[in-house]
């Protein structure tokens, strides 16, 4: 049984935001009442808050720094975040900033996480320079768990090379992450894949195949889709 | 027996050496040096009184003075 609160963490640039947005949309499609909270204090752009309009149009509650302050580099957490712990009618997606510096923002909610179960996902892209090896990934898991004072429950294989992703990248990532899974006893919950590559994935892959659509695109890629 | 030698043309005539000489043997020369100062000197007849303490050299800002003993 999934917990009501899903926390997406990972190394900076691992693809947490795209997955969080897609995950929130998936929950919405399942008919749930969904809130997504942007707790990213690390990145100035390419954040969930950039997609507020689209998400709200789909009926998803977005908790993010108001647009008026979004560019103020304040690195602050929206006060409303507390409401997701209090109002248990919501299914919640927490998009957390990268690395331990981003995960540290979760520490202040420790009390709530003690009271209520949560699913913390750790997103991995093995095409990223610091998480291209088992050792590198283990180091990040350790740092993020320490900074957030939470435990990772599931791994997500989000190995990709942006618009140059080949199926072999995903499979190579899968091998590394399987090794991490073996060592940590943390299961692989999802394998993220662009829709056009789904058919190329082998059937017996560990974890659920999760197709996503990209939202964090630069302007020249948006118009060409 | 001690001896001080002045590189007179480097002297700027500030008089620090004169003020600190414990035996008061340094004075301004009546002659002018290349720059037009009255440089500090010790007259030959006073050199015998020099203690070789190097106080003058230590107060000189312009590396004018060498002291031997």
């Amino acid at each position: 049984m999934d917990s009501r609160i899903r926390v997406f963490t990972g190394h900076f640039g691992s693809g947490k935001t795209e997955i969080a947005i897609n995950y929130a949309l998936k929950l919405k499609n399942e008919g749930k009442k969904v809130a997504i909270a942007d707790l990213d204090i690390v990145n100035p752009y390419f954040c969930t808050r950039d997609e507020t309009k689209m998400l709200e149009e789909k009926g998803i509650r977005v908790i993010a720094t108001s647009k008026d302050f979004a560019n103020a580099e304040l690195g602050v957490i929206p006060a409303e975040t507390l409401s997701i712990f209090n109002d248990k009618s919501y299914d919640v997606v927490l998009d957390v900033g990268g690395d331990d510096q981003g995960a540290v923002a979760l520490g202040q909610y420790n009390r709530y996480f003690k009271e209520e179960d949560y699913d913390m996902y750790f997103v991995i892209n093995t095409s990223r320079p610091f998480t291209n090896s088992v050792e590198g990934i283990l180091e990040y898991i350790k740092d993020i768990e320490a900074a957030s004072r939470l435990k990772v429950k599931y791994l997500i294989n989000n190995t990709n090379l942006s618009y140059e992703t080949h199926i072999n990248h995903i499979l190579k990532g899968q091998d590394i992450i399987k090794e991490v899974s073996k060592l940590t006893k943390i299961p692989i919950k999802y394998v993220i894949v662009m829709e056009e590559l789904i058919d190329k994935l082998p059937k017996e892959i560990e974890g659920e195949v999760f197709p996503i659509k990209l939202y964090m695109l630069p302007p020249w890629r948006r118009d060409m889709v | 027996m001690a001896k001080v030698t002045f590189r007179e043309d480097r002297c700027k005539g500030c008089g620090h050496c004169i003020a600190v000489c414990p035996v008061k043997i340094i004075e301004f020369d009546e002659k002018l040096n290349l720059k037009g100062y009255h440089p500090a000197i010790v007259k030959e007849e006073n050199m015998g009184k020099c203690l070789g303490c190097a106080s003058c050299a230590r107060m000189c800002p312009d590396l004018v003075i060498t002291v031997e003993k």
Partner: protein
Amino acid sequence: MAEKVLMKGNEAIGEAAIQAGCQCFFGYPITPQTEVAAYMSRRMPKIGRVFLQAESEVAAINMVYGAAGSGVRVMTSSSSPGVSLKQEGISYIAGAELPCVIINIVRGGPGLGGIQPAQSDYFQATKGGGHGDYRLVVYAPSSVQEMVDLIQDAFDVADIYRNPVMVMGDGMLGQMMEPVEFKEREAKQLPSKADWAATGLHGRKEHHVINSLFLQPEELEKHNEKLQKKYAEIEKNEVKYEMYNCDGDLDIVLVSYGTVSRICKNVIKMLAKEGLKVGLIRPITLWPFPKKAFEEVVDRTKYGFLSVELSCGQMVEDIELSVKGRKPVNFFGRSGGMVPSPTEIANKVKEIAGGAR
């Protein structure tokens, strides 16, 4: 071929510098380039090199000045307001003829401006910035891969001409993620630093002095003439640009650098469907400006040029100087951190072409 990795522009800057042999990095946090320093702080100590967070941009650039005078490869990184602060040091470094690389991930201005992507530093990058008659070589990459390649060039060019080199990207380039490859590069034959670097005498007879002060007006003028000669050499040898879709007769040529040029390429494809032949001149070096690219197309371009910028027309004067009044030079830009959509730019092109008809 090295394996490709997915990197944020700012991280790729750090890695490219490391691979180019950057021994020291001195920085100060400012959005949207902070990840450069973050990357360097993680990597440099592990390979026995220097990362230091300075107390200010002013201090950081002066640390660069010191390290550059010691003859090592050194880099700093900042964003527009921080680069304004660095201008004092940049002028000294140019005056003392020292090599270094300065990264500028541009945000909107003036003043504190805003953190969204902009190209508001064209003037301060290409027209001097600090005091005195000096020039920086300014590279303006349009992709993360090109940024990586140009940073490696930047260190070489800095060493060859003993001159500071700026690699300037808009915030978009710093923040976005793209696949990159760190290519194996042939080591270039570069001039020795032994005849000028202040490294300690170590048996050398003449002491070396790193300095930009010239007491005699004649000496300073001579020094300035020497600098100007050097800049002329750079103008001759180091111009880089891309010409896209510029064959045959053209209706309009867009002029655009950095990430905006990628939007322009989409515009060109869109307009081709509507029967308009649009080319693109993309300066890769903003100084020296690619004047000769304009010579190639000016006579074949019906309605002239359109400068597309994330600033209020700072590049227009350079285009006009290159076009020399032979064809009209138009401008379309967004500022404040707004990025124009392909449609907006296409509409402007159609307005110019239509208006002329």
